[in-house]
C-alpha cells in the first residue's frame, strides 16, 4: 500500500532534503510539497505527534519559506498530492510569499475575570438600529484586536509582518491569543519588548512562546 504523509509546503528552493525520515519533494515550480512515504495514516499518538513536530522544526530551521502542515495530513498517492497542489496553488503561493524569512510568536493574554473585561456599551445615540449596529461593530473590532494590552501591541507593531487574534469561544482565564508573524532575526527584539512591557500591564498575565514555524499563517480553509 502506498501513501504520502505531508510535512509542509515549500517554494522553489531547496531541491534536495536530507535526514530522517527520508523526505521527498513533490511537484514542480514555485509551490511544492515536502512529504515522506507512509503506507497508512499515522495514529494520533504521542510518538507520532512529537515526530511530526520535530521534523517540521528541522525543516523550518533550514528552509526560508515553509508552510507547516497540521498533524495527520496523509494522502493515498502522489497523484492526489499533485491534484491538491493544483487546486490550491494560488493561495499557497501567496502564503509562501508572506511567511518567507519569518517565524511565528504566540502571545497569550490571561486575565482575572470575564466581567472585568466587558467593554462599556457604545453611546446610546440614534435609534435602536443604529445602537445595534454600533454594538455589533464594537464586538467585531474587539474580536480582532487586543485593546486590553494596547501598549504592548503598539510596542510590537513595528516588528509585525502579520497578526492573527483569536478569542476563545467560551470566555475564561484565557482572554485571547495573538499569533504574530515576525522576521526571524527579530525574535530577540520581540522577546525584549514583551519582557519590558508586559509586567506593566496591570491585571493581565502575558505569556509569549516561540519562535514557531508559522502554523497560524497557513491559508485556510484549504480542505
Amino acid at each position, binding site marked *: 500500500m502506498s501513501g504520502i504523509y505531508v510535512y509542509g509546503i515549500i517554494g522553489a528552493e531547496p531541491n534536495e532534503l536530507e535526514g530522517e525520515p527520508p523526505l521527498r519533494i513533490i511537484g514542480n515550480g514555485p509551490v511544492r510539497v515536502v512529504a515522506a512515504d507512509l503506507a497508512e495514516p499515522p495514529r*494520533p*499518538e504521542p510518538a507520532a505527534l512529537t515526530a511530526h513536530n520535530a521534523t517540521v522544526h528541522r525543516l523550518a530551521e533550514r528552509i526560508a519559506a515553509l508552510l507547516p502542515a497540521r498533524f495527520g495530513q496523509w494522502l493515498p498517492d502522489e497523484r492526489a498530492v499533485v491534484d491538491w497542489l493544483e487546486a490550491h496553488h494560488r493561495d499557497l503561493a501567496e502564503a509562501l510569499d508572506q511567511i518567507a524569512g519569518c517565524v511565528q510568536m504566540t502571545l497569550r493574554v490571561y486575565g482575572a475575570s470575564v466581567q472585568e473585561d466587558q467593554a462599556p456599551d457604545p453611546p446610546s445615540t440614534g435609534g435602536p438600529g443604529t445602537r445595534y449596529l454600533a454594538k455589533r461593530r464594537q464586538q467585531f473590532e474587539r474580536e480582532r484586536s487586543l485593546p486590553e494590552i494596547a501598549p504592548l501591541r503598539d510596542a510590537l507593531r513595528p516588528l509585525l509582518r502579520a497578526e492573527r487574534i483569536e478569542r476563545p469561544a467560551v470566555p475564561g482565564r484565557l482572554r485571547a491569543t495573538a499569533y504574530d508573524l515576525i522576521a526571524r532575526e527579530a525574535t530577540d527584539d520581540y522577546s525584549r519588548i514583551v519582557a519590558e512591557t508586559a509586567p506593566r500591564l496591570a491585571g493581565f498575565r502575558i505569556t509569549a512562546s516561540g519562535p514557531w514555524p508559522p*502554523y497560524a499563517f497557513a491559508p485556510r480553509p484549504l480542505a
Partner: protein
Amino acid sequence: MSDPDDPTLHVLEGADSSLLDLVDNLLNQGVVLTGDLILGLAGVDLIYARLSLVLCAADRVLPKEDRE
C-alpha cells in the same frame, strides 16, 4: 515551567516547551489537505474522543516540569 501565578512574563524557550502550543499548532493549525481524515470520520463524538486521547497521551510525553 515557571509558576503559573507569577505575574511576570514567561518567554518560553525551545520548540517543545509548551504543551499548549504543541497541541494548538499541530492539531488546530497548519496546512490542511485532508480535513478530518485522522481525527475521525463518523461525527463529532468520535473527533472529540480522539482529541481527548491525544491530549491525555501528549501530556505524558513532555517532561514533568513542563506540565502546569
